[in-house]
């Protein structure tokens, strides 16, 4: 990754020109800062977009005061959050309380390492890319549990317990849906999956009905993993007031916020990579390296918009309905798709 970042974006020449010796530590550091910067910028834009989308749906204008059309609203929010006092409840478990947001954020940040930006532009092109992505994103569960238990607040405990149940149980349908796609592509590496989808209009989606249903299941499961409506039970405003991040304020709260929006992007990125042809052009040809990044981000942003659109339409599930939907509906159908797709592979 870092040699690529350095070469294509010219940072390498810049650093060499600055007289930085070749093998020094600066290169990997700069390369690893790039996804962090992207994450923060994306979060800024996503929060602003969410407020604008929700406003337009609800016949409102959304933020208009800070900057033209309220563009600097999120920077204002981030500045506010930074200078807000970082309160730790007296009876809170200090260590857990501090580590929770860090863990949640690293879960999101680490999964950017294997994120397939474009053909030459991917962090670590692991041959178990998709497996790594699904695994690392469940690191968030530990963080949420720590947050809920650490803040020593009954409501946060409720939020934490609910979110653990939800994320853990929704990883199974998500995994199965992705497995259905892996059955056809044969490889686990992200670029491999994407390369396999060359020449297909809109990727694997329309290759077989099983894959289409698997895609829908993955979308629903990914909503649950990111705690977005209709699955936003852990921080259900109207019941648990704030859920696991009730007691947080200032920078720690910003970390949770950043992680949530980061997760939104990563989850829709995986959906795009596995089912929608990743950085390929919609009609299946391979674009240049930079254009690949553009296509990948565009497709992911569409699904981010889809999640926002869904959030302002649907009410919220109850916990037992959540479990019913996962275990009684999504998983059986995911299995059926898996078997169906496997049969298609073997006989066709």
């Amino acid at each position: 990754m870092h040699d690529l970042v350095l070469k294509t974006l010219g940072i390498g020449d810049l650093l060499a020109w600055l007289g930085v010796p070749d093998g020094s530590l600066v290169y990997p550091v700069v390369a690893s800062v790039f996804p962090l910067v992207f994450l923060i910028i994306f979060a800024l834009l996503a929060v602003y977009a969410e407020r604008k989308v929700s406003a337009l749906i609800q016949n409102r204008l959304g933020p208009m005061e800070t900057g033209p059309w309220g563009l600097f609203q999120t920077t204002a929010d981030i500045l506010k959050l930074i200078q807000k006092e970082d309160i730790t409840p007296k009876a809170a478990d200090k260590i857990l309380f501090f580590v929770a947001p860090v863990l949640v954020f690293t879960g999101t940040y680490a999964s950017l390492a294997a994120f397939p930006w474009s053909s030459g532009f991917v962090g670590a092109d692991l041959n178990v890319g998709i497996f790594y992505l699904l695994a690392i994103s469940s690191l968030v569960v530990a963080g949420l549990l720590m947050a809920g238990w650490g803040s020593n607040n009954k409501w946060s405990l409720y939020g934490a317990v609910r979110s653990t149940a939800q994320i853990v149980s929704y990883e199974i349908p998500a995994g199965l849906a992705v497995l259905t796609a892996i059955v056809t592509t044969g490889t686990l590496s992200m670029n491999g999956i994407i390369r396999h989808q060359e020449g297909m209009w809109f990727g694997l989606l329309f290759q077989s009905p099983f894959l289409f249903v698997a895609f829908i299941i993955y979308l629903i499961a990914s909503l649950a993993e990111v705690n977005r409506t209709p699955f936003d039970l852990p921080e259900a405003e109207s019941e648990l007031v704030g859920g696991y991040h009730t007691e947080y304020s200032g920078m720690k709260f910003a970390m949770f916020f950043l992680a949530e929006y980061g997760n939104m992007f990563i989850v829709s990125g995986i959906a795009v990579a596995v089912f929608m042809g990743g950085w390929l052009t919609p009609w299946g040809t391979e674009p240049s390296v930079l254009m690949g990044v553009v296509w990948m981000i565009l497709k992911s942003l569409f699904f981010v918009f889809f999640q926002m659109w869904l959030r302002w339409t649907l009410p919220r599930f109850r916990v037992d309905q959540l479990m019913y939907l996962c275990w009684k509906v999504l998983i059986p159908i995911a299995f059926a798709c898996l078997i169906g797709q496997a049969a298609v592979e073997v006989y066709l």
Partner: protein
Amino acid sequence: MPHLKTEEMIMNMGPQHPSTHGVLRLELVTDGEVVKSITPHIGYLHRCFEKHGEELTYPMIIPFTDRLDYLASMNNNHAFNLAVEKLLNLEVPRKVEFIRVIVAELQRIASHLVAIGTFGADIGAVTPFLWTFRDREVILNLFENLTGARMLYNYMWPGGVARDFPKGFREEIGAFITYFRPKIRDLNNLLTGNHIFISRTAHVGVLPADVAVNYNCTGPVLRGSGVKWDLRKNDPYSIYPEFEFDIPVGQGTMGTLGDTWDRYYIRCQEMEQSLNIIEQALAKFPVEDATDVQAAVPRRIKPPAGEVYARAENPRGELGFYIISDGGTKPFRVRAKSPCFVNLAVLPALGKGIMVSDIVAILGSIDIVLGEVDR
């Protein structure tokens, strides 16, 4: 495996809580997600209405009745004036009756809009909340043109009303009706028919009819349990008998009879019925009748000694005033029997063995306003 006795957790929902519709504290004993018992604690918004009633003259009490159920001020005024007019044995001019019915029904729609909006927000759908409040703004602007105030009007006086309809006001109401009818359909498509909403509200908080009658629940809570009881029809007052409108009653279409969904859906249907009433009232409005609306308002209100209990159909149920007068300008005793106070008393009975998220749904469907509960 012997049953592991898990320790029950006592939790406080309120008094500052996003979905208690005001300052109400629910003490929940919960075992995991399942709620063992609910004990409501009220009194945070107690403003001694009944003590005020004994120290103020009759016209001065009316602004205080606005503040009982502050989402339905017109209906509160209406109920209080019915009681005082019975005491004074006052004959109210026909034009004033028409104005009162139109204004009361508009207020009913505004109050139901708040009930539906907050109920949707409690279940998680925030968009209907914004849509209902957008439509409610239109009614508030109508009231501001008529009375000068947006929410607390002091508009209806014993024997008359403060101001006559300004020029072109009836056309504005007609415009509102045509604007609002399609909006109810949108709301039903977005919320009432939504499968998640139905699964969250059907079969939840079932209130059998006899329990509802024994608890003296009234309004949409009682009609949700299938009891066809509406004061405008069963114990008519003012000129309601002149209008045809039907009383929506719960049928258990989506779940069992008397569940949260029924109570919610009745409010949607009642809004349409109110629109019908307003249309008929506008059609029959005595336009050429030029009597001054304050003609029958006595200069000094000194009712003869006696007592009366009069009641009116508020959006949340039957609001009754029991007034004892000792012949002076100040009432001897004013007792406001508020519907939300009685409807809230049912919550502990409904709250056994439900889940935490259901409390929010049931509380939203009972639709309480703490100003009226605590008086």
